[in-house]
């Protein structure tokens, strides 16, 4: 499966990973190569085979909804790159 330049830019946008123009070509080539090798999966007959999401047969693992103390705010903010008061600070989400 050969990816196009637009495919790479689309994926990068979905993944929110910035890419330079130089990056795009290299990624395009490497990803295309990798994906081509995975075409062999199409050879496998999986008619009627259920997908496996995880290997243990646990289902609907539930917890009681019990109130307990949360992490204290100072600890929550301890690794914050930018903070103001008791908040994480980021660039404006909505701009004019």
């Amino acid at each position, binding site marked *: 499966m050969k990816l196009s330049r637009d495919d790479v830019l689309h994926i990068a946008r979905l993944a929110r990973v910035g890419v330079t123009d130089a990056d795009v070509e290299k990624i395009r080539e490497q990803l295309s190569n990798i994906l081509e090798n995975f075409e062999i999966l199409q050879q496998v007959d999986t008619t009627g085979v259920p997908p496996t999401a995880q290997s243990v047969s646990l289902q609907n693992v539930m917890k009681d909804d019990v109130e307990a103390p949360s992490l204290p705010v100072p600890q929550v903010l301890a690794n914050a790159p930018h903070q103001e008061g008791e908040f994480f600070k*980021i*660039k404006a989400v909505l701009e004019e």
Partner: protein
Amino acid sequence: MTIDIKQLTIHEAQRLLRAREVSSVELTRASLERISQVEPQVRAVVTVTEELALQQAQKADELITRGDASPLTGVPALIKDNICTKGVRTTCSSKMLENFVPPYDATVMEKLNAQGIVMLGKTNMDEFAMGSSTENSALFTTHNPWDLSRVPGGSSGGSAAAVASGEAFYALGSDTGGSIRQPAGFCSVAGLKPTYGRVSRYGLVAFASSLDQIGPLTKDVTDCALVLNAIAGYDDRDSTSVPLPVPDYTQCLSTDLRGLRIGVPKEYFVAGMQAEVETQLRGSIDKLKELGASIDWEVSLPHTPYSLAVYYIIAPSEASANLARYDGVKYGYSYPNADNMWDAMEKTRQFGFGAEVKRRIMLGTYALSAGYYDAYYLKAQKVRTLIRQEFDQAFTKFDALVTPTSPTVPFKIGEKVSDPLQMYLSDVCTIPINIAGLPAIVIPAGFADGLPIGMQIIGKPFSEETLLKIAYAFEQATDWHKRKPQI
């Protein structure tokens, strides 16, 4: 007393500690000294926690004096840097988390701390556990103690190299596609990946949630059993943790393998496998026969060749979701001069992540995206079922399957970095086990030109006792584990 820091095992150290022939502080100082001695060449350790280690050692000595020691009390260990350690920097060997200090301990750390362990520090790894050589560390490369120009394997390369060179009595690693087992094989130490669900993933920085497991890297099989005893068990903070009781894994160790049925799946002896590795493995399997096991050389798991593709679709897909949290907002690296919110996020991820991590995030994003989900991710999940069913079938006839760990001996640093696919191929023997969620152990099985070769023993779910039994018998009959690198 003089401590042979390279040879001394956990169980031997524990005997000396209880007999008060040595103290935990002495063991700790000897380990810290060893670390400063070999680190300039091996470079396995990211953060050394000297002060903390000595404090823990003193407390451990008190526990031992009171007669309250557990098997791991006072024995110094190193922890892979993707396991959260409260108050101690946890980097995942990435620029993204270079200064991240977790506000909590992983469940496995809580369990080990309850036994009074000594933590010497955190080990180097492939960034976010993505890699097979530790060359993807954004910090520095670790060198194989057996040949410093070669890789220690990955992604738990730091942990494996540290145990092999005597920097710690044992280490914790994590395994998603072979990341404990392949470096264990490359460094000639024992490495165990438990059954998926056996050990809690709470506090393990997530890579691929349906594949990740934490496990021990140790100098011998008895030590492996001791560490597994300590870290295994149900945890309600990990929804995939299985509520099965933990046996005493040291009780199953025996030198008699009579009655055990071992199968050898042909597909693991891949074309292009190094001749000496193949010869050594076949000889090792013959040894298991001498010890009483019956061997069937003609086992076939026909879907094995599809495992690589299945893994390299599923793992990156899950990774793309798990690594979405690194956005420069709550913790970690944050790009400082962005124009707007999206620019900040995109540049944070562009500069915070290394090339392999970005490659896998993009692979995964593509495989999950609209229009491709069915052809890639869903297809891979279905083939995953077939791979698991094949193993289940085999385990109706065999107690264990034995295979090589890697098609080659440890390769040279730099040899495979320019071709991602070549690097992925080095996991071909270990990946199917994660796909099926099975337990597997790797133990030293010889050398080729002085370079380590590991043997992998695979079992059905929750059969770690059988694996440890076979591994122990082999180890006691061969002594490969007693050979140490010259460093």
